[in-house]
């Protein structure tokens, strides 16, 4: 069955695309995986059928607007938090575009994710609320759940700009079986010169790997792996293993490298060039999208969904969570 491998190959090696490519299948898959802007930049300048070139030019313009809006959200957060004099580290898509990473080229960016010291969380929350952000949902169960078990504040949305901000104090929930060194993430973050910073190049990769494997159900997995490929393209992977070990994320980081190498020919150390046990299942999951943009392989998807909750919570809590969600 056709899956998203066509998209992975197109991103990895745009020159390999033949003129008689199934363009609409490729474009639809890329849209569904939130990678159309990325694809559009990868194919920029190559000889393409005229309609394809036009459609991709629209996608680039759209991504550029998105980039601008994401940077502006970061700037507004900076202004709101500047009086607190605490470090504010941009994460994920916003960080990639702010740092000028290849991973930011054409990337779609939803929420503004920031990392702040846990000790500053209450002050950050108060400052954001004073500057026009509001709670997204006033649901007491969800709120208590977030505060007790999550690595971030419940999501806030800005009253007039209608954009969400996620305030993290670390990169994995406290209930996860791994506890990354949040203090080291903050200490080694690299200043952007405007009062904001981004994670160090190694931590960017480790965070992306953690997000992909230890936290999520692999929704958006292909985009996350592409992020990692680009981050390695930016800065190489020297010192990565040691840093991953420091955060307790050796397994996740190594798996990300193996999958990236398989999907995108990412240059990795020799020990990461062959797939290992379980990798094939991950590949099946991140490529589970057909040329009509439909999610495929429901059993694989469900397995990863359950796994994501399993990883995040002890079993009794998982039951309580699913029960409370189900009753509503």
């Amino acid at each position, binding site marked *: 069955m056709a899956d998203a491998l066509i998209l992975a190959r197109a991103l990895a090696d745009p020159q390999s695309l033949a003129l008689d490519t199934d363009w609409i299948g490729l474009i639809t898959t890329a849209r569904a995986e939130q990678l159309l802007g990325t694809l559009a930049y990868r194919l920029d300048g190559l000889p393409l059928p005229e309609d394809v070139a036009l459609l991709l030019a629209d996608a680039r313009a759209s991504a550029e607007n998105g980039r*601008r*809006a994401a*940077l*502006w959200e970061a*700037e*507004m957060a900076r*202004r709101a938090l500047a009086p607190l004099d605490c470090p504010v580290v941009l994460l994920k898509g916003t960080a990639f575009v702010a740092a000028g990473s290849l991973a930011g080229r054409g990337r779609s960016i939803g929420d503004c994710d920031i990392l702040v010291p846990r000790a500053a969380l209450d002050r950050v929350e108060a400052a954001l609320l004073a500057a*026009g952000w509001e709670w997204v949902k006033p649901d007491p169960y969800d709120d208590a759940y977030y505060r007790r078990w999550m690595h971030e504040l419940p999501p806030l949305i800005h009253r*007039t700009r209608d954009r969400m901000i996620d305030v993290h104090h670390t990169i994995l929930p406290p209930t996860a079986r791994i506890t990354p060194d949040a203090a080291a993430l903050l200490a080694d973050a690299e200043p952007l010169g405007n009062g904001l910073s981004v994670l160090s190049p190694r931590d960017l990769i480790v965070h992306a790997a953690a997000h992909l494997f230890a936290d999520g159900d692999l929704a958006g997995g292909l985009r996350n792996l592409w992020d990692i490929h680009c981050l390695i393209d930016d800065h190489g992977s020297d010192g990565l293993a040691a840093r991953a070990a420091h955060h307790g994320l050796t397994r996740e980081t190594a798996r990300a490298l193996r999958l990236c190498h398989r999907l995108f020919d990412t240059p990795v150390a020799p020990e990461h060039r062959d797939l290992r046990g379980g990798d094939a299942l991950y590949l099946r999951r991140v490529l589970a999208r057909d040329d009509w943009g439909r999610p495929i392989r429901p059993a694989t998807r469900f397995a990863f969904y359950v796994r994501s909750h399993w990883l995040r919570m002890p079993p009794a809590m998982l039951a309580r969570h699913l029960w409370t969600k189900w009753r509503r």
Partner: protein
Amino acid sequence: MRYRAPDAAALLTAELDAFTAIFHRPSGITHLLASPAREILALLGEEPLDGDMLLARLADRYDVADATRDALAARLDELVVAGLVEPL
């Protein structure tokens, strides 16, 4: 406290009868401003000013003589919330 506004290159403007439509390039947000907000924005775009200096320039340059300090503070607050003006 002094205030700063983006320079003219960051703004795209179109006069629409009594209003000025402004496209703020760094944010991609459109604003519709009336007097004296657009004059405030123009003055602060040239150089950062504090409230008193701004009041004086408004009277001097645009003949906005009836602006009180309170009214000006209210307009400035709105512009700050909108992200068009930044307190320094």
